[in-house]
């Protein structure tokens, strides 16, 4: 730094540029270290574990090569859980999006309870999953649950339904609770975008003869498209790997009919104490999620 003017540029970089590059490296080092520690190491560990047969409590076991993967491919467990995961993800995500966009549109209107409603809507998202699930379990209870009570009084059903203990009710139940818990995320993201759409566009559309529905399709929706893509991809990834809500609500049951891949991995690792097989399942799960990830990265790159 003392000989700023005499130094001939090396690698086509001026001394100042080189100093900046060094500073850059220093600044990103902590991030890279944390990344290696919490992402790369567990990933490599999982890959390593997945070629052993390991008894979880002792973490002892022998090398089995591709056996765990052969079990994954030929056995029923992985594929049936994958099917359950897809049903759960598509179901709850669809509801989240529809309810989220609908309520965001509603809250965007000038209604008198708007500011109150805007804060209330966040409530499920902030609520701890354990608390939320406890409340919902009571609501769903077949003997004294308010849900059955209400449906019976409305005359929609005449016998109490077994909500979480039978199919397809259990799947419908978790999908509903998942949608209830996570739609606020959609509301907030969509509402933020709605507020940036210029009012002039709606006025122009009204003058051009567009009614409320045409204005939604021709002005609102195109403006929401990019944010919706991001929301859908993010929520798809998060719902796909959702664990606590499902584990607490049904534990995967009845039998395995709501056992998603996360629950399968957990069951294999800590229920059946097969850490190696569990690791193989989690690697399989990760490969499926890679698809969403690639889509997400593509989408966000496009915008930049």
């Amino acid at each position: 730094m003392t000989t700023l003017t005499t130094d001939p540029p090396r690698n086509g970089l001026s001394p100042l540029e080189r100093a900046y590059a060094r500073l850059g490296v220093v600044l990103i080092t902590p991030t890279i270290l944390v990344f290696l520690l919490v992402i790369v190491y567990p990933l490599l560990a999982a890959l390593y574990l997945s070629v052993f047969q390991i008894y979880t409590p002792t973490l002892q076991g022998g090398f089995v090569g591709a056996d765990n993967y052969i079990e994954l491919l030929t056995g029923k467990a992985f594929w049936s859980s994958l099917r359950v995961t897809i049903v759960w993800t598509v179901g709850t995500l669809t509801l989240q999006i529809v309810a989220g966009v609908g309520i965001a549109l509603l809250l965007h209107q000038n209604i008198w309870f708007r500011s109150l409603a805007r804060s209330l809507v966040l409530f499920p998202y902030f609520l701890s999953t354990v608390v939320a699930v406890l409340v919902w379990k009571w609501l769903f209870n077949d003997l004294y649950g308010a849900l059955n009570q209400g449906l019976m009084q409305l005359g929609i059903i005449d016998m109490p339904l077994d909500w979480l203990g039978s199919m397809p009710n259990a799947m419908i139940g978790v999908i509903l609770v998942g949608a209830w818990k996570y739609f606020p995320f959609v509301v907030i993201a969509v509402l933020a975008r709605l507020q940036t759409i210029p009012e002039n566009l709606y006025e122009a559309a009204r003058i051009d003869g567009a009614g409320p529905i045409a204005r939604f399709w021709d002005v609102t929706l195109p403006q929401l498209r990019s944010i919706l893509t991001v929301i859908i991809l993010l929520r798809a990834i998060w719902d796909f790997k959702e664990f606590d809500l499902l584990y607490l609500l049904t534990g995967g049951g009845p039998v395995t009919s709501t056992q998603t891949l996360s629950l399968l991995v957990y069951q294999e690792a800590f229920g059946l104490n097969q850490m190696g097989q569990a690791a193989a399942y989690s690697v399989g799960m990760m490969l499926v999620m890679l698809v969403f990830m690639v889509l997400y990265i593509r989408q966000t790159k496009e915008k930049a």
Partner: protein
Amino acid sequence: MANVIFKDVHKRFGSFVALEKLDLDIHDGEFVALLGPSGCGKSTTLRMLAGLEFPTSGEIRIGDRVINDLAPGKRDIAMVFQSYALYPHMTVGENIAYPLKKRGIKGKARAEAVQKAAELLQLEALLDRKPKQLSGGQQQRVALGRALVRDPQVFLLDEPLSNLDAKLRSYMRAELIELHARLGKTMVYVTHDQLEAMTMANRIAVMHGGRVQQFDTPDAIYNRPANRFVAGFIGTPPMNQIDGTAEGDHIVISGHRIPFNRADFVDSLADGPVVLGVRPEFVAIGSGDGLPATVRLAENTGHETIVTLELPDQTRISARVEAARKLDVGQKVALRFDPAAIHLFEASENGTRLNLDETPAAVIPMRAK
């Protein structure tokens, strides 16, 4: 017939009175400018005509239809917004076609209408672009295209040129004048730029504080301003207004007596305080006999010099002289006003003009009607 009538229209936002007793009668095919300072209610007037705001009371008519309660899409109007308001995800072609699409015009008829509008505005080469890929002037033309594609009865334009640079603005001004001549449609044009209003409009409604101050031809607005506000708003620099006292057939300013022809003014003009108005081009700077003044500033614009002068009572007035004229700051001069160019106003805040008209000749070229 597409004349536009505002009859006794009032508009309040809550307790705030935005427009008061608005009466306008805009003729079929006329180009009318709404001109006034920021916040005077120009946009509100236009938006009520568009159906984007509703009058608190009064009646708005297009032709023989009362349109107070009609939806914007049913009024047979088209509007160009200051921000253009182009649909960002649609191409230029789709933007222009949109009003037709929403009115159920399909296929060949629609394509032809879009083609015609695009030709008129020289947009043919841009039809497949998105608004983001256009310059400000091009976006402006697309907004115009979307307005004129379906041949509405009345065009509404809210400061359509204010986002353009000076050169493009004067070009678009000429384009709009030509377009109006070609289409012969009623146009209502909001602007706070007096040059735009003076050069483009058949008539100008000068607005201030929610009221129309004067609604007349550019010539009349300039030469026979209805009151002190209009006199002080139009012209660069605007008309000088000097406090004085009427005494017989003289106006006394700072003890100096200026003769005027009493027969040119209304009978009600009594002795006492008045405001003398004179345009800068009718202030003659000389020496010897005249209203004494000191030169404070001389701004040479190239083809003329605007001189700011100070009277003994500290009133500042401006004069327009030829560029070659040399005047030094601090120089003592004597001013004379062309008696035929003198306006008198009531001495109140926004006093009315007291002349019996047909007085001064226009000195700015007017647009042929």
